[in-house]
């Protein structure tokens, strides 16, 4: 009897380990999805973030589906996603940027260094628009259809494997 009870801790631990191993293999949403998906963009009009490019407003999201990219020059993952944004641009996607809490000189430096995929960049100095569209971090990318409705949200940096996903979402938003 005593001998048998000595195995109890091991049995309990084995059960826990099995459960934990199973749970680790399960997908889990780590991110807060915007409840704005399916909703129209809130009205906004932002000043230009850099010299030479226009600012951004709700009215710019007309004609065809476009990408809205939330970024900042101080954001390291934004450097990582720059090549993917370039690739999307080469595929003919129009990308409108919103620079979060940025200075014009820093933003211009960033574009010089890592390329400029944007047609317009609005400057959101107090994260006002970012919060209004339900984004909680930088970078994030939204697919906005021709009517200005938010169709899809990509949280975090765009990896190479995300490019076809975004293209498909843009296609779906036609």
């Amino acid at each position: 009897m005593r001998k048998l009870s000595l195995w109890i801790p091991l049995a309990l631990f084995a059960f826990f380990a099995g459960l934990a191993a199973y749970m680790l293999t399960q997908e889990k949403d780590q991110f807060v999805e915007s409840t704005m998906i399916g909703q129209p963009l809130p009205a906004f009009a932002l000043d230009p973030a850099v010299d030479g490019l226009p600012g951004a407003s709700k009215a710019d999201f007309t004609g065809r589906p476009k990408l809205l990219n939330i970024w900042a020059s101080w954001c390291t993952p934004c450097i990582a996603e720059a090549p993917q944004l370039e690739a999307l641009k080469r595929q003919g996607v129009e990308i409108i940027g919103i620079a979060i809490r940025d200075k014009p000189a820093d933003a211009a430096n960033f574009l010089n260094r890592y390329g400029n995929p944007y047609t317009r960049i609005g400057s959101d100095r107090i994260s006002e628009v970012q919060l209004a569209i339900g984004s909680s971090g930088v970078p994030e990318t939204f697919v906005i259809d021709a009517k200005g409705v938010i169709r899809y949200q990509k949280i975090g940096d765009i990896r190479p494997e995300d490019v076809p996903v975004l293209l498909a979402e843009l296609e779906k938003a036609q």
Partner: protein
Amino acid sequence: MIAEIGLAALWLAAALAVLQMVSGAASLRAAPGEANALAIYARPAAVVQAFLAVLAFLLLLRAFAVTDLSIKLVATNSHSMKPFIYKLTGTWGNHEGSMLLWVGVLAASGGLLAAFEKRLPERTMGATLAVQGFVALGFYAFLLLSSNPFERLPVPAVEGNGLNPLLQDIGLAIHPPTLYAGYVGLSVAFSLAMGALMTREVNPAFARVMRPWVLGAWVLLTLGITAGSYWAYYELGWGGWWFWDPVENASLMPWLAATALMHSVSVLAARDALRTWTIMLGVLAFSMSMLGTFLVRSGVLTSVHAFAVDPERGAFILALLGLYIGGAFTIFALRAGAVAEGKRFAAASREGALVFNNVMLSAILAIVLLGTLYPLLTEAFNVRVSVGPPYFNPAGAIFAIPMLLVMAVGPLLRWKSDKPARIQFELMLIAALVIGVIALVSFFGQFPLLPLLGLGLAAALAVAAVLPLRGRKLVRVPLSTWGMVVAHFGIAVSLFGMACEGAFSEERLAAVAPGGTEQIGDFAVTLEAVTPIAGPNWTAMEARLAVRQDGGEPVFLTPQARSFWSPPQSTSESALLTKWNGQLYAVIGNQAEDGRWQIRIWWKPFVTFIWYGGLLIGLGGILAIAGRLGVDLKRRSATAKGAQRRADVEALGGSGGVPAPQPAE
């Protein structure tokens, strides 16, 4: 270069851990009385390994101090504009850095053990160091293969990403290093337990070796948890001091196990009883530390402590857990049956009380463990639940209340066997205090049950804690007994704080226009103005609150709603007014459309006693360590003198002579 040296130091340390493991294991193969040729390397390997691991940590500290943005970890977690102290503390405010700290402390405690502990039989020591090396090796592998803190960026970043604003606080300087040192200090207890189990040397001598390590780790855990609780209290701005969050529980569980272990190791040292139980707790305490690391880092549970979460790393730690905890429990199951039973004792005895409370502590541990893991279990069936105070408080109390009662009585009992009738007066006094205080408080109003019981128990315990000193010459009382008295009194103080906070707290949530006044307790709080201010890496709205107690002179409080811009995040900085009998806690919220500000104020009577109690408990532990080490050193010099005298007698050719002094029990 610096980063490469750090990385090289880690690889070398890992290699030495292998040597330590092999050499330690070799000493097990040596015939009794003989030394294995390989076995001599274990101690030096442990010492050099400690040096290398600490060096690696210092190098990372330097990289953060100078904001070396070519290192990925620095670029993602620091920022050149950050205040210097937070640059330093930011070293362990992230996954890789904190794991390096963990490994550094692990190696350092192994090194200390190898360098200074000479009392154990060499075979046991060898086995212990082998286990310690084996544990260290796994964590080196984890660091080097999946969490390299020294990884370079292909192109140095222009600017760092900044540190989570919640961590930009002096609390980060104190709480994690203390807690880590405590967690990992338990690894020595684990290794010693395994070493003793493998060589079947579970005896009082072994317990005396283990005791200072358990006490030391326990003191650090106590202080770390106390600091963490206070940090969460003022930094999160939620007004609470314990949230039963998985990460908090992850620190509480090793503490509960270590508390039980500390008491049981004392019984083993003094009375040669509870052998198997002590080994079990030694294994359990460090297992709980590792389990906590797993829960926190793998992201299987959701917590307010957002660590960088990565399932792949989680799988790695789970594998380590399987290896160490699974392995230890297997050896325990195979070997513990062979450990001879210790001395017996009556139920009504000091040992009896200690065993009872050990069981209660273990039960509370099980309650906390179950509550922490329950969401994991239900999520396996796709049900998301959150287990909170409604479960933990009553379920824990079922076992905590009898434990506190026995804790009041236990130290008054004699070892081996005692008659309760002998301490009749003390028993009556304790019972009278519990009942009296509860009756008195209930007379003044309706209060929730648990805080009410807490008040009664706190009063009884505070008196009972000093009863062991009754009738003794205070200067002759050993330091370790003072330690027990202070620690038990600290529990009473802490319990009093918790109960008062639970029973008498007042809360106001109001929208106040500048110039408006709110009354809470004896305090009239006037919102004078809300002004924007700027810090080094944040801007904030700061409220100026004039607090008048009973119409007296105003004291000003300035809670802030801060916005950090790198990373963009806002925090609520609470403002505290500390009085001897409690704290006024103020937080500013959002501005309403009509221009009024949301202000939240609590008056928490005696809430500070929670942490004063924690400090007392830690102080008690320190006194106990000082007392034990003092006795050990005296004993060591006495044995040395005895050996010297024997040698002298032999040199004189005399036989018999003076018998060598026997070490006292």
